[in-house]
């Protein structure tokens, strides 16, 4: 156990050297790395977790019910349209009942034709080609007496939800990119969740506001013949709805069917109104949108149209003249920032479904800095205390153990840097704990050497036996610890995962240093000093 071939010594020393080189960029600023650090060397720095550098962790949940209701409402409209086609099919009781749209066909002999038309509305999501079964979004159940029910098919809904999550991620990414936030990571989690992590984000409230908005923009004609009070009592003409206005303005009655939606917009920018210098959002319409808008505005000169964002009226300007150039302005008591945010939302498009925050963790930069300081202090004091204890207990061999401890620390930090694993406050705790537990392998080896020596073995043979016998124990003991740590890594998230990462890395490096580095140091010492007694 005490003989090392030349290439083994080289490998061990080289590993430590490489680890040291990997660590250097952590002590440089990013500018220094760019200018002085050779590009062929790894120039990575340790990634600090949200709890250390401050930032936001947001877990969004796609509101499945809201999405279903939206789809059912659209389906209801499509059904009405389909039945109205020539020849018309008479029906009664069309409406949404829980998760299905149902209607009753009047004439028994038209049921077959109705079923055919409804069949076209099932919205195929994948064809049955290539041996798969065809998947449609909806399925049709026919009851007796011409009763028709359309509801979601299970696989269809799953498939749609997948698309919804994917689209939402794209929309969020566009919004966040345009907002100029610090690069957040946006990931799908589970079947219907989206995880947004934005380290270093200083304004979490704004980020939340931008991401969470559905941002469905619609333009509606205002009906001034019905007062809001009247409408609130329930006296609404058919096809009209009552919408509240932002910042406590008077609610207004508007047409339910929008003139246009945000999809007709091609661009939106912040600008200033020439007369008042008030921040406004100016938008440009697509060709078809411009044509539609020109038509509507020339038909309704003198009326008000409401600009609505997520069921809230932003402003309701009067149509003074037909707007034909395909662009316009939205004013609504904006500040520069709110105007900017609205422009971002309009450019990035609407979310396909409502998102709600299921979990949020925000750490301010002040706390993060304090945590780093506390972690560093604890690590330093803990390590020094362990070093002193080892010196007092094992003398020269304590020095060897402490050398191994330092090498261990270097290796842990180097691996964290290379893997770009996130270092969190519990992660630092994991490293300090490893410092405490790492000396265990040295303790095991030293105690064993002592025992062997007391049994009458010569120093070389005692050391040899000590390493050999302790090795099996070290392996068993560390693997059990490793199992617990890996389970923790699997189930953990955020800071807890950070702890598991450093703990796992620490266990592995501990085993490595014990069976290579410590052994090498002790072997070298034996070779040069030829001791007659092992000082343990």
């Amino acid at each position: 156990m005490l003989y090392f071939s030349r290439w083994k010594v080289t490998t061990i020393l080289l590993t430590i050297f490489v680890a040291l080189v990997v660590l250097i960029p952590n002590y440089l600023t990013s500018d220094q790395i760019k200018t002085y650090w050779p590009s062929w060397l790894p120039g990575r720095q340790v990634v600090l977790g949200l709890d250390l550098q401050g930032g936001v962790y947001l877990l969004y949940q796609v509101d499945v019910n809201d999405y279903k209701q939206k789809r059912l409402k659209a389906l209801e409209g499509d059904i009405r349209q389909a039945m109205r086609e020539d020849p018309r099919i008479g029906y009664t009781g069309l409406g949404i009942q829980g998760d299905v749209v149902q209607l009753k066909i009047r004439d028994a002999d038209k049921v077959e034709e109705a079923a055919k038309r409804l069949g076209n509305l099932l919205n195929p999501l994948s064809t049955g080609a290539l041996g798969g079964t065809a998947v449609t979004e909806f399925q049709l159940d026919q009851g007796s007496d011409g009763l028709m029910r359309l509801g979601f098919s299970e696989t269809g809904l799953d498939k749609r939800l997948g698309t919804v999550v994917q689209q939402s991620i794209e929309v969020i990414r566009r919004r966040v990119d345009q907002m100029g936030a610090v690069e957040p990571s946006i990931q799908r989690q589970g079947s219907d969740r989206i995880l947004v992590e934005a380290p270093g984000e200083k304004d979490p409230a704004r980020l939340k506001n931008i991401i969470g908005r559905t941002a469905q923009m619609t333009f509606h004609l205002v009906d001034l013949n019905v007062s809001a009070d009247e409408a609130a009592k329930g006296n609404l003409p058919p096809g009209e709805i009552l919408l509240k206005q932002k910042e406590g303005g008077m609610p207004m009655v508007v047409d339910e069917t929008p003139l246009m939606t945000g999809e007709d917009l091609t661009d939106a920018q912040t600008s200033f109104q020439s007369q008042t210098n008030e921040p406004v959002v100016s938008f440009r319409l697509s060709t078809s949108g411009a044509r539609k808008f020109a038509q509507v505005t020339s038909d309704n000169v003198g009326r008000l149209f409401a600009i609505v964002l997520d069921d809230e009226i932003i402003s309701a300007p009067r149509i003074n003249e037909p707007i034909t150039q395909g662009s316009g302005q939205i004013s609504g008591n904006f500040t520069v920032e709110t105007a900017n945010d609205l422009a971002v939302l309009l450019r990035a498009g609407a979310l396909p479904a409502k998102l709600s925050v299921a979990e949020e963790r925000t750490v301010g930069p002040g706390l993060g800095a304090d945590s780093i300081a506390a972690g560093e202090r604890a690590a330093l004091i803990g390590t020094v205390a362990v070093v002193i204890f080892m010196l007092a207990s094992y003398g020269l061999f304590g020095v060897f153990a402490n050398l191994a401890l330092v090498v261990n620390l270097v290796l842990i930090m180097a691996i964290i840097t290379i893997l770009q694993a996130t270092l969190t406050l519990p992660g630092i705790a994991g490293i300090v704990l490893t410092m405490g537990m790492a000396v265990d392998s040295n303790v095991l080896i030293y105690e064993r050497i002592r025992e062997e020596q007391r049994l009458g073995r010569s120093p070389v043979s005692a050391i040899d036996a000590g390493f050999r016998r302790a090795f099996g124990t070290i392996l068993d003991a560390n693997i059990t610890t490793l199992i617990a740590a890996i389970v923790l890594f699997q189930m953990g998230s955020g800071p807890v995962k950070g702890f598991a990462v450093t703990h796992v890395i620490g266990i592995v490096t501990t085993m490595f240093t014990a069976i290579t580095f410590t052994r090498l140091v002790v072997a070298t010492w034996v070779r040069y000093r030829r001791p007659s007694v092992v000082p343990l």
Partner: protein
Amino acid sequence: MRLLRLFPDDTKIPFMRWRKWSFLVSGIASVLCFVVLYTHGMNTGIDFQGGTLMEIQTKSGPADLEGIRSQLNGLGLGEVQVQSFGTDDDVLIRIARQEGGDEAQAAVVTKVQAALGDSVDYRRTEMVGPRVSGELAQNGILGIISALCLIMVYVWFRFEWQYSLGAVIATLHDVVLTIGFFAVTQVEFNLSSIAAILTIVGYSLNDTVVVYDRIREMRRKYKRLNLVVLLDLAINQTLTRTTNTALTTLIALAALVIFGGEVIRSFTASMLFGVLIGTYSSIFIAAPVLIFLDPQLAGDKSTKKAEDDAEEAAEPA
């Protein structure tokens, strides 16, 4: 230089003779843990219960806890806890889970920020919705159980089933007492507490395996030696290692508890407790349990006699 040694060499401490006491003490302690758990429950944090937690720091002078409390109570958010956190300037606010799903839950942070305004620094905000909190609790329990199972299988392969069972009994003992620690001290039980328990599981097993390893080695060497004598010998031989490793780990953990900051204190404090218990259990639970589990002695009529012999043999010369 004289080296520090906590125990002389060749200690002959008759650990096994105390096994009835250690079993009794551990048994009573475990039962008490369950009783306290039942009567007082755990102070489960928002991770498992859902709700909102905010850490704020006043920008000028010590925080007026009473003022903040009355301000927040006026918001109609249900149960609000306001307590100081570490220093006079730092305040921890806990707000119970809201009725009305994720949306009502998400609105809490905004409401509190509107009420307290810019006079304070928002250091940390955590909000866990009702759905996520249920999953987190489930994952935590699943994690502990699967870790125990995996370790049992590993020890079973490397040793024999008696050892595997013994290790799990000792580890379960540690888990129960640590949960008891949370129930008695009412330290907040959250996600990092699950991490602490899993770390304790790892540490305690590490310790147990080292003792078992020595027992196995000695059983191979001294086939005819009485088990009780053998266990005492094995524990005494590994005693310095057990205590030295426990000490270095405790030193490191103590540094974390004292200097590591308020945010991870419940995490580090519970680990400190767990390492103590884990060290105790590998000597006083894991080893003596083998006496009951070992087939060689089970059903052996000479057990009683052998034990008497053992006690004689263990007497310090």
